[in-house]
């Protein structure tokens, strides 16, 4: 309902010269919201106009407030001809609609033009007055907070996690409308920017509505994407996780009255749970293999308050129907007891309880990647699904059923995969697309997991008393590694051993996940970035034929990528991957696959075996020789990596430790091709489990190439680490210096007929060289870690490969890297995480949501491509889940190392590293001293610094940006709102702008500048969880033209140094951030 939007145009500066005769500009401003437009007076003949306008007031619906951006257009007045536009500013006023976020937008915004880029700045003030209680109105969802951050934002605790949110809106792309054949590209690009701004506003509003319906107040892990489907339209879609967040106030718990929905829940839940549950559970345990319904075991919960009550009646029914649908949980029940473990039946029971709760939801998905301690019980493995679709025109934008149906289908698949892994939820869930012409690959992936039932059943718990009781007794440092599925009825073949940490539960030999490494996980040594890269040529084709070709290729790519990941993981002597992200990108004549993840050695998992090379014919001497050399190289690499990553697992005096690398004669031959069919799952013979090592067979040149490429991956130079997760396991003492960067590289394949192999090499080199470049450029930050390395590949046109990377380099204090400063770590996290522990899931499920299940699913929807899609589905579970035993055989001691000497070498290596870093530093001594010389403190220069400020008006606030959810050494004291911006830039003078590199370089710099300006105007000093989701570049050098679209998002925050007690005034604060930034430069 109504709200009043007020805007005031204060001044402009650095405007471009619009009148050549006078070298000046007669500027005025149009302020537009919805259909209302106001104008300022013309400020004649100035490049730094002072309009100081009145307050322009717009009286509008809050629905519009959410959808529409405030449009500010700066024009040059011309008496005789049409006024020339100088540029525009779009201001998203959403942050002002939320009481907890920003209260005013005030600051300098770059004036942006799609052709000329930034042309001066304009100072604007914006305020909003909302009139009435927001929650009553269903069309708007003002007040719902949005976070890109994929964890519970710092400073908040989750009173409830409601679940998965998805929404999409479609429209026709102005670029392809008939009118654009006659209007200029500039006009059509502006129309596009405006439209997308509107669409994402609408999308957010709709998502917000869903949150309100669920009873939440926030969206966490909000991920919004654009699909430029060309002729067939423009899709803006978003997913996220609905939560009820409460702000943590120091000392007191979040006030109950602000969240009437959740407060009674917690109260009612608390007391009965305390006295009632334990005995009940104790009795129930033995009989729990029967078909339990969750609430029978828990009589007290019948008094459950509002949020839970609706789902109670139906939960019973569906729990039984559920067992009909899926195989694993059912069998899991029976065998839980037979495992003979004390925790077995309990676990099964818990699983079923939470399962039923979660399965009420259409999609038990969570876009979060890190969780409060204890939330994640077990992790099954990665589940992913892809589907190839042919785009058709969206006929009715108001009812985008097709796209909805497509995603629905994929999500169903994911859900069933998770179920097959014995998991009831999917965490770290994400979706993306790759479009080429009319073919579109939809992908979704996540990590199958079991979440703590405690969080599902109760609203707010008093952790202290209930913590231990219902959990299975596995310690937090290894519990999540324990298999969620049943040992005797595994959904896929895997090699199980007893957990190396607690020795009580089974763990897989390898664990792949899409989430961040849980903070409490026990890790040996350090982690590193592991990438699998793959190119596959395909014939050019049209329409359905093309789609078929692609869907036929997909499974092979998935398999290849997986094999590469596995090999590289073993080569680094690690046993788990976190943050796995697999991207498959389609072009006209090739498919690109890039899998990135952070490899670590989980202490709980068995040590990976070595890699064994097998030859084709054992008789051939020269061949044998060749194999031996390769084998030696591999063994050397493994040994080197162990040192490099300090992988030094504790000795185990244990049964079945092992047979080292086997005698050549007894090598088992394995064929990769047979490993992936799901049919074989049941045939797996676990008895011959202790095969010795991971065997690679050299049977053709391809295999040789594969092995070579395996060995070409360079490890980061001394002083550097890299990962694609939030932080690096093994490094805890970050300093505050951060440097976020974006890098884009495009390679033109000059040679038209390349083979798959050479193409692979080119692609691999491209990625490796990018990394090398980063290390070189950031060498002054050593010791440092590149975190959240996010690679994005695309095939913008035939023979072009584009890789764009966004990451942050963070320095750390190297002297303490050895020991994990446990006490500090705990105290640091303590205040927040303790409260975050009180985390709960809403049981509330839609009783009408009938989970129509797999068998029928595919037939109707997928039409032509069903077989291929199905092939993918069935294999995907296998491909990404926790192990592929045909190839993977655990031998805890395959490439055994003498640990005594290892420690020595380790320390000398560290010494070397230290020395090296020192010399590197010394190399830049000159610059350091000169910096000191002119630092504002020294007398001589200080005056000039000061005068520069006084001269140019207020200095620009330093705004830090990071793809992580936090800035090291700081606290986010306030979240100001989401930043979600979309820009298009075009040029018709490509050469003059320094070619396509010059063009993109300045565009990216401009995008950063605009993000920073918006954050600063909201009163913030940093962007966290920043990401560049799209960077679509089109060029035509012959016509001297290029065009680029960039979409970025993040959370605007105010941070303070951890040492500071209260929000510092902007000046001191800035001073600090400057110092920190200096370190980073």
């Amino acid at each position, binding site marked *: 309902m109504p709200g009043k939007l007020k805007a005031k145009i204060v001044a402009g500066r650095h405007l471009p010269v619009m009148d050549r005769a006078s070298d000046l500009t007669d500027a005025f401003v149009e302020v537009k919201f919805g259909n209302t437009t106001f104008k300022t007076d013309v400020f004649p003949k100035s490049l730094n106009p002072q309009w100081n306008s009145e307050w322009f007031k717009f009286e509008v619906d809050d629905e519009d407030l959410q959808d529409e951006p405030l449009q500010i257009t700066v024009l040059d007045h011309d008496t005789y001809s049409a006024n020339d536009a100088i540029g525009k500013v779009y201001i998203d006023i959403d942050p002002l609609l939320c009481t907890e976020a920003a209260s005013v937008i005030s600051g300098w915004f770059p004036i942006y033009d799609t052709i000329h880029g930034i042309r001066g700045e304009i100072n604007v003030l914006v305020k909003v007055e909302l009139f009435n209680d927001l929650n009553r109105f269903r069309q708007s969802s003002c007040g719902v907070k949005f976070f890109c951050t994929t964890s519970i934002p710092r400073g908040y605790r989750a009173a409830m996690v409601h679940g998965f949110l998805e929404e999409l809106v479609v429209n026709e792309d102005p670029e392809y409308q008939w009118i654009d054949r006659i209007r200029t590209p500039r006009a059509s690009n502006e129309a596009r920017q405006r439209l997308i701004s509107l669409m994402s506003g609408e999308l957010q509003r709709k998502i917000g509505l869903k949150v309100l319906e669920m009873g939440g107040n926030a969206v966490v892990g909000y991920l919004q994407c654009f699909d430029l489907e060309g002729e067939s339209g423009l899709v803006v879609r978003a997913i996220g996780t609905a939560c009820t967040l409460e702000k943590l106030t120091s000392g007191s718990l979040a006030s109950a009255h602000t969240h009437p929905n959740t407060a009674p829940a917690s109260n009612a839940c608390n007391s009965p749970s305390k006295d009632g549950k334990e005995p009940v559970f104790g009795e129930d345990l033995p009989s729990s293999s029967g078909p339990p319904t969750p609430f029978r075991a828990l009589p007290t919960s019948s008094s459950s308050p509002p949020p839970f009550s609706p789902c109670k009646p139906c939960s019973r029914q569906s729990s039984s129907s559920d067992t009909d649908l899926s195989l694993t949980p059912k069998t899991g029940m029976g065998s839980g007891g037979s495992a003979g473990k004390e925790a077995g039946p309990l676990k099964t029971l818990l699983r079923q309880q939470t399962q039923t709760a979660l399965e009420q939801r259409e999609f038990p998905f969570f876009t979060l990647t890190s969780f409060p301690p204890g939330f994640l019980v077990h992790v099954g493995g990665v589940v992913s699904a892809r589907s190839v679709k042919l785009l058709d025109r969206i006929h009715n934008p108001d009812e985008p059923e097709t796209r909805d149906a497509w995603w629905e289908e994929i999500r169903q698949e994911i859900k069933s995969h998770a179920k097959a892994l014995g998991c009831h939820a999917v965490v770290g869930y994400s979706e993306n697309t790759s479009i080429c012409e009319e073919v579109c690959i939809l992908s979704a992936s996540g990590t199958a997991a079991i979440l703590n039932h405690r969080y599902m059943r109760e609203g707010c718990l008093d952790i202290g008393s209930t913590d231990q009781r219902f959990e299975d007794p596995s310690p937090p440092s290894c519990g999540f590694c324990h298999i969620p599925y049943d040992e005797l009825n595994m959904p896929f073949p895997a090699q199980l051993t007893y957990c190396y940490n607690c020795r009580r539960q089974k763990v897989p030999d390898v664990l792949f996940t899409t989430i961040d490494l849980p903070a409490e996980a026990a890790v040996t040594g350090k982690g590193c970035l592991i990438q699998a890269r793959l190119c596959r040529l395909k014939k050019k084709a049209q329409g359905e034929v093309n789609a078929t070709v692609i869907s036929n290729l997909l499974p092979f790519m998935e398999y290849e990528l997986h094999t590469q990941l596995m090999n590289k993981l073993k080569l680094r002597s690690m046993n788990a991957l976190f943050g796995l992200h697999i991207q498959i990108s389609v072009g006209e004549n090739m498919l690109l696959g890039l899998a990135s993840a952070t490899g670590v050695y989980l202490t709980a998992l068995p040590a990976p075996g070595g890699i064994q090379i097998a030859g084709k014919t054992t008789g051939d001497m020269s061949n044998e020789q060749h194999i031996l050399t390769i084998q030696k190289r591999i063994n050397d690499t493994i040994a080197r990596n162990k040192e490099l990553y300090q992988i030094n697992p504790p000795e185990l005096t244990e049964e079945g430790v092992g047979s080292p690398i086997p005698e050549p004669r007894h090598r088992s031959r394995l064929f990769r091709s047979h490993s992936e069919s799901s049919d074989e799952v049941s045939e797996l013979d676990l008895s011959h489990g202790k095969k010795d090592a991971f065997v690679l067979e050299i049977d053709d040149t391809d295999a040789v190439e594969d092995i070579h490429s395996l060995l070409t991956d360079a490890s980061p130079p001394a002083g550097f680490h890299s990962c694609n997760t939030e932080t690096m396991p093994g490094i805890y003492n970050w300093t505050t210096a951060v440097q976020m*960067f974006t890098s884009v590289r495009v390679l033109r394949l000059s040679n038209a007929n390349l083979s798959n192999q050479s193409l692979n090499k080119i692609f691999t080199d491209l990625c490796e060289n990018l990394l090398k470049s980063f290390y070189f*450029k950031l060498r002054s930050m050593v010791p440092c870690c590149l975190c959240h390395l996010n690679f994005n590949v695309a095939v913008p046109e035939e023979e072009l490969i584009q890789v764009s990377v966004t990451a942050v380099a963070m320095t750390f204090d190297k002297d303490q890297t050895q020991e994990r400063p446990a006490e500090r770590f705990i105290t640091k996290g303590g205040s927040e995480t303790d409260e975050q522990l009180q985390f709960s899931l809403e049981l509330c499920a839609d009783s009408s949501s009938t989970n129509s299940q797999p068998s029928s699913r595919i037939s109707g929807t997928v039409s032509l491509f069903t077989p291929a899609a199905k092939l993918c589905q069935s294999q995907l579970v296998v491909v990404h889940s926790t192990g592929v035993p045909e190839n993977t055989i655990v031998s805890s001691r395959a490439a055994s190392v003498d640990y005594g000497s290892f420690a020595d070498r380790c320390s000398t290596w560290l010494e070397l590293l230290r020395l090296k870093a020192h010399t590197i530093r010394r190399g830049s001594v000159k610059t350091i001293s000169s910096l000191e010389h002119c630092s504002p403190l020294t007398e001589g220069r200080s005056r000039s610094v000061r005068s520069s400020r006084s001269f140019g008006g207020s200095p620009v606030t330093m705004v830090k940006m990071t793809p992580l959810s936090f800035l090291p050494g700081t606290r986010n004291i306030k979240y100001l709102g989401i930043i979600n911006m979309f820009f298009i830039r075009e040029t018709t003078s490509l050469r003059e702008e320094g070619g396509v590199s010059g063009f993109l370089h300045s565009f990216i710099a401009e995008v950063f500048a605009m993000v920073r300006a918006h954050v600063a105007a909201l009163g913030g000093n940093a962007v966290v969880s920043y990401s560049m989701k799209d960077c679509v570049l089109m060029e035509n050098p012959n016509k001297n033209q290029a065009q680029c679209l960039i979409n970025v998002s993040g959370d605007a925050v105010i941070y303070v140094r951890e040492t500071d007690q209260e929000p510092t005034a902007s000046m001191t604060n800035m001073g600090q951030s400057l110092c920190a930034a200096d370190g980073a430069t």
Partner: protein
Amino acid sequence: MAVELDVFVGNTTIMDEEVYQLWLDGYTVNDAVKARMDAGVLEECEADADVLLSDTMDQYRTFQMCERLLQSPAKLANQLLFQITPHRQVMLIERYYAFDDTFVREVLGKKLSKGTKKDLDDISAKTGVTLKSCRRQFDNFKRVFKVVEELKGPLVENIRQHFLLSDKLARDYAAIVFFANNRFETGKKKLQYLTFQDFALCAGQLINNWTVGAVDNMVEDMDVDLDKEFLQELKELKILIADKDLLDQHKSLVCTALRGKTKAFAEMEANFKNLSRGLVNIATKLTNTKDVRDFFIDLVEKFIEPCRSDRWTAADIKLYLTHYTNSAHILDPFKHQAVWDRYMGVIKSCIFIMYHD
């Protein structure tokens, strides 16, 4: 396989000072890569030539984009495109406006016009400074000149404020502007032994003492031009050489004071009239723009060369000029003490600076 596009953009703009210097020095990308390799940057960290090339290209692009801002440094502080820390901004500006003494020596006192700009390739060939760097330096001179020309107030301070330069650099620019404005001849062979710093010090003296701004620093056309009234008054000094009695009297006063204090006494006594005529003639002719231009060459020809041929030491010069100046005060009929001091103060300092043993 060609790299079609390759960019790296940091939130805080990454700038390597060494590369910046190479860029300022007008190295091409390839030359810069070579120079960096020679400097051993590759050994410092494990990298190869491609990485270096890519990095250098990136940095060059960044600098090119920054150049527009560096040309009006005040904008650098409140622009939004590049996030650069303030003290790094200071470094960028300071280096951008730094110049080669050999280059500036060539254009000092020349009109900062298109004509001079055309000669830059010759200067480049002669000095070994790349043409690109010459152009940057020349354009800097011109830009500073253009801005301060129209400003009131003290020259050095104006330059410092508008271009955010250090005190030292601002003084040098003031000298360059001052020389360019008055078109002092500095290129003659006889002046070749003088460095830019010599001239800059002299310019400082002239600016501080002989301009309008030296007397009243809020006057319209301040520091750039010499004080016309003062130049007019200098004509009055003619009496010191025109009046024979006065000249003799002056000589005897100086000689009395000097006797026994220097080895060069004989030469001083012998040359007194010549030297005095030289200095006073310079003073009286300064109303002529042409003679202003020849100010330094005149000083060399009329005073420094004769002294040098007589092997005066710097101390001799100092002694002589001190007594020469002071003795004039005792001369009864000489009424222009103030003008004389204002004139001789500068002459004395300039000669000290310009007299190299």
